């Protein structure tokens, strides 16, 4: 079953002009329009995600991965001009056009985003448990007991020591904070989780454990995911299919092992060779 179907996603920073699209992208070799100076962070992006599937998005820094991921997660950036269509199973119409309340409900329930920056979306003064509970409360949970029990369950699933639940989040290690973000994202059993650079800011050994934990939870819950990373290893471990981005465009897509071992596009070949 197709969960999410996106077409023609575009994010432009700046006023834009009618030559922006022709003057940017892979062939133009830049994401900045030479005529008007606007940055075409991503454009002409089409993709689908099936229920339970993991889609990877790779590309160098600035290639537009986060801009694309934010659109998929229905995150609005007031500085950007956006366009495109996101259809989602069980919902009518284009989710990019829905009213504030519907969008809020979707983002609380169906689609969760884990931000690139480790503390984004977390209040460092709240306890770790409080940060997770907040997500439950905004979905209408009211019973104190139920919330505690659910938070405890999420701490266990994401391998955060339960006895640290009532400590301020600012006292947590980077790996624990990342887990709190993931626990929060999973709190209301979403069908899709968008993870932006899940290993950024973590030591290599901590990275492996967080990825391993996420992979296990993702499979157990059958939740679909979009995983954004500049690190090919992360996407290789997690993703069934992968998109490669450059200068704001998707230049190649396919089965993850195919993209890694038989890259077709010149840029993908360079990217893979530079790692091996």
């Amino acid at each position, binding site marked *: 079953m197709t969960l999410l179907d996106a077409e023609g996603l575009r994010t432009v920073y700046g006023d834009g002009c009618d030559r922006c699209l022709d003057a940017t992208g892979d062939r133009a070799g830049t994401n900045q329009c030479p005529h008007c100076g606007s940055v075409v962070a991503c454009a002409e992006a089409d993709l689908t995600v099936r229920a339970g599937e993991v889609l990877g998005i790779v590309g160098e820094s600035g290639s537009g991965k986060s801009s694309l991921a934010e659109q998929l997660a229905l995150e609005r950036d007031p500085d950007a001009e956006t366009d495109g269509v996101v259809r989602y199973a069980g919902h009518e119409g284009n989710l990019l056009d829905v009213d504030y309340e519907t969008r809020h409900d979707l983002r609380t329930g169906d689609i969760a985003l884990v931000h690139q920056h480790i503390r984004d979306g977390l209040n460092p003064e709240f306890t770790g448990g409080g940060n997770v509970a907040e997500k439950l409360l905004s979905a209408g949970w009211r019973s104190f007991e139920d919330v505690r029990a659910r938070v405890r369950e999420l701490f266990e699933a994401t391998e955060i020591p339960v006895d640290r639940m009532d400590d301020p989040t600012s006292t947590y290690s980077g790996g624990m904070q990342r887990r709190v973000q993931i626990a929060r994202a999973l709190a209301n059993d979403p069908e899709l989780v968008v993870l932006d650079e899940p290993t950024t800011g973590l030591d290599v050994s901590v990275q492996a454990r967080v990825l391993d934990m996420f992979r296990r939870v993702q499979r157990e819950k059958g939740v679909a995911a979009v995983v954004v990373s500049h690190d090919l290893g992360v996407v290789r471990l997690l993703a069934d299919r992968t998109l490669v981005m450059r200068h704001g465009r998707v230049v190649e897509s396919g*089965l993850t092992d195919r993209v890694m071992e038989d890259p077709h596009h010149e840029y993908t070949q360079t990217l893979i060779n530079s790692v091996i």
Partner: protein
Amino acid sequence: MTVLSVEGLSKTFDMHVLGDTQVVGLDDVSFDVREGEFLAVVGESGSGKSSLLKCLYRTYDPTGGRIVYHGADELADGDAGDGIDLAACDDREVIALRDATIGYTSQFLDEIPRVPAVDVVARPLREQGVPAEDARGEARELLSRLDLPEALWEAYPATFSGGERQRVNLAQALSPRPTLLLLDEPTSALDPETRQAAIDLLREYVGEDTTVVGVFHNTAVIEAVADRVVVLDDGKLQRVVPVADFEGEVVG
């Protein structure tokens, strides 16, 4: 019955980073595999053995030819008996086929370092919905059959020797009992004793329901397990012979 029909399979790599040179991996290779057969693939280094297996698994996108697979006709949308062209079906179909019926081992094991060997082997079973304890039980059985010391079952394969990893690899490929099993040099790093254990296991597992296409270097192994031998030379099919006719030839 034919389970796999490889027709004019070609694979050319366009190397954009090396001044747009082309490298030929496979050139117009055709052969059939019968249901339940064990087919060995041999040839010198660089002759296209791994490329062949990777095309069948679609880790490589074939650039020509067809790979008609009859092992999952229930998943095909055409008429029954038409099979599925693995060279042309879309990525989602490939994922479904891999999950349900096609197993593959590469020469290398890339698992997350923190997963214990027994869980690596149990994973395909877990994904088919087998309860955790049953899957782990089956995994332990396979690892013990392959003589992997019990002390290593709960350890992480990242720290294993080549031969130990290879046994984890092989056990993982066998555990879900796939209909089509693609093995790339599954015994190359094993000592003679362990190799014998692997041969015994392969012979036992590979019965009527499993068809194997495997790359092997060791003549003794081929004689012990294979029905027919596909010989590749410089990307081309040189010949396909019954294993009896292959006996005594020097490989690669």
